[in-house]
Structure formats: structure tokens, C-alpha cells
């Protein structure tokens, strides 16, 4: 309130002090997140970056596209192709079945306890990947597995006579589904919860039946979430090593196992080709994750 000349002349000084204080404060602010960025740099970004650079270098450190070119050799290309097939098949299966399970539990009019049970179980099963999972499937669908034996003894059906093997493409896909389906349930549940009861009621009051509701409203609204989830599942399967390695050893030629063997020094003996393999994996998983993020933001945009 005071407008004395004294206070007027003094005003600039605390102002300048505040600016200085603000500067040190913002420097302090940055210090607060420094450990995180340092950690991310050392253990996430630099290691990845060095591989990406290595992919474009020869053994002497000179620039080359030779490693990338070698990715298109038949044996490596076929590894990518099998990886792609397993990932795509398990992502597709996981998406469809996971969606069906989530819809059944949330909108199927089933008893109340089904939903929390499914959610808890999905939390467990989506993390029950890796080596124990491969043991479980060997005990189930392996040559001596329970289902194989039961089918042979009681249904007189020789599963392995049909050409099936748990070590095959189909076997690996079936195994991957064990964590893909629950993952889908977990990702898509919020989207299904986002379907508001009033949309169905509005549809009904405008003369639309159940089919019209699903076809014109629910599925179009869920679609970005479904597609995005499928891409995430794809990336999830594409990067998985442990399950496949424990299940098939090196007998199934997929990229993560090829890379694992390369790092262990079993095959190839070409470091820089290994870097290129890694780069190829990042490109594939990166693209599908980018697609997921883009679709998710589209799905969120539509929410009121």
C-alpha cells in the first residue's frame, strides 16, 4: 500500500534477488532429477546407442552398411520371419481370446467374483513367463505330458502322430499364449470399463439392438485399444528369450535365440552382425510400440 519514494527505489533490488534465487532454484530442481537421468543414460540409453552405432561399423570401427546387408541373408531373414510368425500368431490369438475373456468377465453378466479372480490370475500368469512356463508346457504337451498321455490312453488320439511338437511353431505359440492372453486381459480391461452404460441405453432408446450396439458403437470405440494391445503383445513376444530357449534350446531358429547364441559365442562369431541383429529387434519392437502409443492416444482422445 505504501507509495513512499523510499519503497519505490528499493523495489528493484529484491526483484533482482528473486531472479537470482529463481535461477539457483531451477538448477536445484534439475539436480532433483539428475540421478534418474544419469541412471537412464548409463544403463539404458548409452548401451542401446552403442549397439546401434556398432551395427553400422565393421570390426575396425569404420562405417559400413555390410552388417545391415547381412541381415538379409536367407538364414537370418528366415529367423526374423519365424519370429514374426510366432509373435504375430501369439499376439493375434492373445488379442482375440483375451478380449473374449475380458468381455465375458466384465459384461457377460457373470457372478461378481469372476472379475477380480480373473484379474488377479492375469496378474500372476502374465508374469509367469520364462523357464518355469516352458517346464509347465513340457509337462502338459510334451511327449510324456499329461494331455498327450491322456489323449493317447483314453481318446486313442496320438497327438505327436499328427506332426505336433511342443518344440514346433505351434507349440511355442500355444506356450506364449499363456502370458499373452492374461496380458491382453490386463491391458484391455480399462478400455472395456470405459464403455459407458449410457451408450448402450442411448442406442436402445434410438431403436438399436445388441448387434447394432456392438457393430456401430462398442467395437469402433474399442478398436484403437484392441489394435494397440495387439501391437504391444507382438512386441512382447518378439523380445522374449527365456521361454523359447528353455523350451526348444537352439532348435527353433528365432531371432532372440539367434542373438542369445551369438552373444554366448556359439555361432556367427561376428560381433557387428550381432549389433545389427539387435538393431533389427529394436526396429521391430520400436515400430510396434510406436503404433501402440499412437493408437492409445487416439483411443483416449475420443473419451469425453
Amino acid at each position: 500500500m505504501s507509495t513512499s519514494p523510499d519503497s519505490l527505489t528499493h523495489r528493484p533490488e529484491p526483484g533482482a534477488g528473486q531472479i537470482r534465487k529463481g535461477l539457483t532454484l531451477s538448477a536445484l530442481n534439475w539436480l532433483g532429477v539428475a540421478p534418474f537421468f544419469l541412471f537412464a543414460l548409463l544403463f539404458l540409453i548409452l548401451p542401446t546407442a552403442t549397439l546401434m552405432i556398432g551395427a553400422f561399423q565393421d570390426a575396425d570401427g569404420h562405417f559400413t552398411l555390410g552388417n545391415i546387408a547381412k541381415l538379409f541373408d536367407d538364414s537370418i531373414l528366415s529367423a526374423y520371419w519365424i519370429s514374426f510368425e510366432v509373435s504375430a500368431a501369439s499376439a493375434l490369438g492373445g488379442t482375440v481370446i483375451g478380449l473374449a475373456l475380458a468381455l465375458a468377465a466384465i459384461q457377460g453378466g457373470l457372478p461378481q467374483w469372476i472379475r477380480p479372480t480373473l484379474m488377479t490370475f492375469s496378474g500372476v500368469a502374465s508374469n509367469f513367463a520364462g523357464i518355469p512356463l516352458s517346464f509347465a508346457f513340457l509337462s502338459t504337451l510334451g511327449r510324456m505330458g499329461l494331455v498327450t498321455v491322456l489323449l493317447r490312453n483314453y481318446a486313442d488320439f496320438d497327438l505327436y502322430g499328427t506332426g505336433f511338437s511342443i518344440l514346433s511353431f505351434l507349440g511355442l505359440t500355444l506356450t506364449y499364449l499363456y502370458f499373452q492372453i492374461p496380458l491382453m486381459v490386463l491391458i484391455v480391461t480399462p478400455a472395456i470399463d470405459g464403455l459407458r452404460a449410457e451408450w448402450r441405453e442411448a442406442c436402445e432408446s434410438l431403436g438399436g439392438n445388441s448387434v447394432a450396439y456392438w457393430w456401430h458403437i462398442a467395437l469402433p470405440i474399442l478398436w484403437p485399444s484392441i489394435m494397440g494391445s495387439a501391437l504391444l503383445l507382438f512386441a512382447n513376444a518378439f523380445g522374449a528369450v527365456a521361454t523359447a530357449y528353455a523350451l526348444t534350446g537352439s532348435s527353433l531358429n528365432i531371432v532372440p535365440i539367434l542373438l542369445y547364441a551369438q552373444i554366448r559365442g556359439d555361432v556367427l562369431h561376428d560381433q557387428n552382425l550381432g549389433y545389427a541383429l539387435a538393431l533389427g529387434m529394436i526396429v521391430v519392437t520400436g515400430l510396434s510400440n510406436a503404433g501402440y502409443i499412437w493408437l492409445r492416444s487416439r483411443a483416449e482422445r475420443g473419451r469425453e
Partner: protein
Amino acid sequence: MAYLTINNLHKRFDDHVVVHDFNMSIEQGEFVTFLGPSGCGKTTVLRMIAGFETPTSGRICVGGEDITQQAAQKRGIGMVFQSYALFPNMNVTQNIGFGLKMRKCPADDIKRKVAEVIKLVELTGKENHYPHELSGGQRQRVALARALVVEPRILLLDEPLSALDARIRKNLREQIRDIQRRLGLTTIFVTHDQEEALTMSDRIFVMNQGRVEQEGRAEIVYTEPATEFVARFMGNYNLLGAADTNRLLGLNISGHLAIRPESIHVLDGHSQQDGTLAGTIRQHQLLGNIIRYQIESAGITLQVDRLNRTASDLMPAGTEVRLQISRDDMREVR
């Protein structure tokens, strides 16, 4: 013969009775409001008329036809939701045209009718916008247009204005009433806002705990409350119990006595007129065009409204006054 009649409607969820013996009949073209606090059952009745809830017992008839068990999509009853419930994957045109599409209307007809109704609700220029690109008021007008375009037999409005700003709310209130009159639509409006109910309705049903407390024309419900609840809910009635009434006015009643604040006249403290009560001003609140005084008389505090004419009229706390209350303005309520 009334257009919509509801007989002995009951609804219970588990062992909780939400709607209790609800009866009403509405003429064609009437604008009726269900007014009550949240949880009074007004929305449940609306949802049973729409077909989203099945009554535990009772009958709903439209134009002489029993629709109690009919599926919602066959009823031809339009609904506007509090949360708009616009389909987020469709633009304005597609949202409004949805009902016509479900009725297998030819594309040309849909186009024409949608254009007409867009003009009616003043959304021209927004045809290709998606719901998330519209303001709350615009969304609600799309929802209204979507319900109107299929020419419903009855239009149901479930608190359509309560999510909107005060200014937009007033504006849309008039627009809805105007369109309703022009189209002669039988309309049921649900709200908890008594001002909204009073300004819009032909007839009001005041509801409380699943029952109708009072029904009648808007002005009657306001000036002649039938129960203590209605008196409390409709305005700032002074409500006196039997003992207080006796002490203050020397009257013997069984229920409550309701006196509206604006019907108490404040006279000069030296006035010697017969039948007046002595009172002391305790405090006042400024409500714009009205000053509301708290005046104590015989140990009872009464609310008294006076017009706010000039600043010098204001009576400070401690002022001694005389109060005059006409017999006609005292209402005994249950």
C-alpha cells in the same frame, strides 16, 4: 384419456424399495417435471418409462398400449442423458442420424431430417465435429437433437442441464421449452433444481424417498405446499412446529406451519397496529434484489425477505420491529 398413464409402479433393488406405489397420467403435449433430491427415485421412474429398468410391479401405458414389458428399442421413447451419452466415435451428423439409420430410413430422408434438426438446435456449422470438439452446451444440444429427430412419442430428459454452467443452463432451458412447445412433445423432465422445475414445467411431481409428496401446477406447488418436505424443498419457508406455533401465534395445529419469508411484513417498532408481533433483528444477508433478515420473536428466529430498494433502508442488528403476518399466508402442512 391421458396419453401416458402409470399405475401402482413399484421398484425394489434387492430389499431396498426405490419407487413406492407411483401413479400418474400425462396429457399429450404436456411438460411434466419430477423434482426431488438425489436418491428420491425420480430417475428410476424415468428409466422404467424408457425401458432400462423393469418394474417390480405396476403398469406403464402409452396411448392405451401397455409397454411395461416392451424392449427399450421398440418403445419409441427418446431419452436425453445427464452425461449426454454421445457416441464418441461418431460426429454430430452421425450421432443425430443414428436413430434414423436404426429405423432403416432412406439416406436422403436421414440427410434432410438431420439438417432440419441441426438448424432447430442451432448447431449449423458443427455438422462434422466430434463430441470431444464441442462444448458442454453444444454436446447437450446434439443429444437433444439426436432424441428429437426420430420423432419420439415421449421425450425423457434426465437432469440434462446439471453438468452445465449457470449461464448456458438458463439459455438452454428456454431453448428446450421453446422446442417442446413448437413440436407439441409430451415431455418428462427430471431435476433436483426447484428453480428449473418452476420455470419450465406445466406440472410438477415433487418426489421424496420413492413416493410422490405432491403433484400439481408449478405455481400451486410453490405457494401451497402440502407437506413439510415440499415446503422445505420448494423455498425458504419458515417452518414452525406445533409448540412454537402456539407460543408465537396462539394457534393450535397438529403438523407444521409454513410461512414464506416474503409474506411477513416488517413494520416500524413503534407501530401499535393490532395482531402484530414484537421482534428484534439479529442479522441480515444480502441476496441482490432481496435482503433476508433473521428476526427473533418470542425466542423463535424467523426469516423475512424485504426488497432491497435503497441502502438507507437497511435495518441494523438490534433494531426493534413489529411483524405482521396475514392468516392467508400461513399454511398448515403435514
